């Protein structure tokens, strides 16, 4: 319960740091602890379930991990600027149906994908405009969107699954090949990591969540930042749904949903993103998603039942949050 800051620690470090100091700093990074957990879990499952590190299982694992990680890339940006999108799993389900409609209307596959992504971006834009300009908390805006988009998807699909269009190499690249979706996830992680750490957009996202008044006084358009991140999240969600459609070969109107959305948020949070905003890491979200995947996959191999799995995931999220807040105090950074 001690929440005081230690002023003695607030002194400056020397500019040239020793190897030990650099290692300590690395070990205190929010991603480091969850990376350590991932390594321990791999060793544990490889020892106890002897078919863990096989090609077939790694492919299964990579497919489980890909979607939460892609969704996490968007949710992390939103969490950093103190927003959340509960409807991204719904956009995930909607996008393949828009793609199918556009394809059947005569567009080529790539054109149909672009059309679907534009619709997803528009969903993000609407969420952003309602949240920012009508002052509705994003939790509520996206809760409304959650039901609204579910209804739209069920209506345009009439409740029936749709076949994924196209064939051949394009389909393999877009998710047909076993590792394709995971490679897309890695590419998007790399892209969003650069956006967050090496562009003005990322820096302004952190500033918006860390101190909105300060950001506004510095001349940053925080409304634009938030709306943009809603658009990014919805578009990533839709793209992820499309990849999944190409992997499976058809799309169910009840795909995605709250389960995949919460796995995305959980990946980000386990990876060290502060739910209170102002701090977060995309790489952490990748590792967080991998940890969730290893847990599910590993316990499945061991034959632990699905009810038990939810208990473990719940415990993992709680432990990760406690660890993050405690470590944040050691880093001398207030967790808000």
């Amino acid at each position, binding site marked *: 319960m001690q929440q005081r800051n230690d*002023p003695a*620690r*607030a002194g*400056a*470090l*020397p*500019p040239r740091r020793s190897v030990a100091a650099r290692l300590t700093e690395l070990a205190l990074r929010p991603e480091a602890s969850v990376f350590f957990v991932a390594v321990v879990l791999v060793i544990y499952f490889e020892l106890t379930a002897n078919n863990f590190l096989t090609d077939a299982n790694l492919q299964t694992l990579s497919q489980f991990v890909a979607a939460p990680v892609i969704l996490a890339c968007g949710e992390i940006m939103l969490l950093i600027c103190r927003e959340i999108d509960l409807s991204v799993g719904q956009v995930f389900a909607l996008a393949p149906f828009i793609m199918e409609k556009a394809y059947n209307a005569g567009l080529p596959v790539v054109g149909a994908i672009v059309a679907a992504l534009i619709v997803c971006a528009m969903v993000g834009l609407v969420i952003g405009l309602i949240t920012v300009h009508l002052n509705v908390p994003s939790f509520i805006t996206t809760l409304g969107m959650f039901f609204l988009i579910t209804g739209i998807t069920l209506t345009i699909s009439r409740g029936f699954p749709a076949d994924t269009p196209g064939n051949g190499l394009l389909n393999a690249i877009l998710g047909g090949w076993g590792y394709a979706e995971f490679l897309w996830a890695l590419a998007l992680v790399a892209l969003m990591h*650069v956006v967050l*750490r*090496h*562009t*003005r957009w990322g*820096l*302004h996202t*952190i*500033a918006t969540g*860390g*101190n909105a*008044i*300060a*950001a506004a*006084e*510095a*001349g*940053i358009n925080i409304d634009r930042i938030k709306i943009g991140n809603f658009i990014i999240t919805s578009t990533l969600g839709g793209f992820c749904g499309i990849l999944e459609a190409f992997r499976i070969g058809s799309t169910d109107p009840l795909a995605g949903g709250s389960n995949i959305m919460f796995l995305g948020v959980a990946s980000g949070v386990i990876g060290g993103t502060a739910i209170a905003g*102002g*701090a977060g890491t995309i790489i952490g979200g990748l590792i967080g998603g991998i940890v969730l995947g290893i847990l599910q996959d590993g316990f499945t191999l061991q034959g632990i039942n699905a009810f038990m799995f939810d208990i473990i995931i719940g415990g993992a999220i709680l432990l990760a949050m406690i660890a993050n807040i405690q470590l944040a105090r050691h880093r*001398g*950074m*207030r967790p808000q």
Partner: protein
Amino acid sequence: MTAPQAQPQPQPRGPEALRAEGIVKRFGSVEALGGVGMQVAAGEMLGILGDNGAGKSTLLKILTGFHQPDAGTIYVHGQHQTLNTVDRARALGIECVYQDLALVNGLSIYHNMFLNRELLKPGPFRLLDHRAMRERAMDALADIGVNIPNVNLEVGRLSGGQRQAIAVARAVHSDAKILLLDEPLAAMGAREAGQIIALIERLKARGDIAIVMIAHNYAQTLEVCDRVMLMQHGSVTYESHAAETSPAELLEIVRREYREMRGG
């Protein structure tokens, strides 16, 4: 309402940097400023005193382009200007250090110093040039005598005085010609306040910067400022060269005002 008292207007010394005339600002039915004027010259420091709610911060936020006045005109270096955004005011060399310290705790010192004015690497991707920002931030801090060896530190780890110094350094290093300080000494111990005052005096000594400081403390303000201005209920009620007035005189004016308000 207060009738502004007829005071002899003390004239600024150097070339005029900033002048505002007849500034009115309403928030709904509340009139925060009822026709306020002020001016400050390069190399000069103006102190604005007054109680909470006197309109000091509102005036400051109009001069930075954060709020727009409902009436009144602003001249920057003699030219009539409309300060409709913070960016516009900045482009004219007006920089403000806000009371709530416009720093982001989770970002490093150098990111804060370049917030919304980031240096980018050449090339089509518009990536941040972290190294250049780090080096320029170090130079800027050394230039105004602020001793912070590591600009990678998160601002949240610094003391109040260090944070204030970073905020001032940020304003100055971006070539501010008009520096607005909102209660720079508030919530600060005597030693830290002394360091900030020394920093402000070094800036004043450069001679090219006009400084406007908002403050509560009469003695401190008269000590560091060339001129002072007293604001009450959205109006300027008194103006004087710092050397020609005293805390006691200012206090007497405020006291008289309270008596009038109580109908005594």
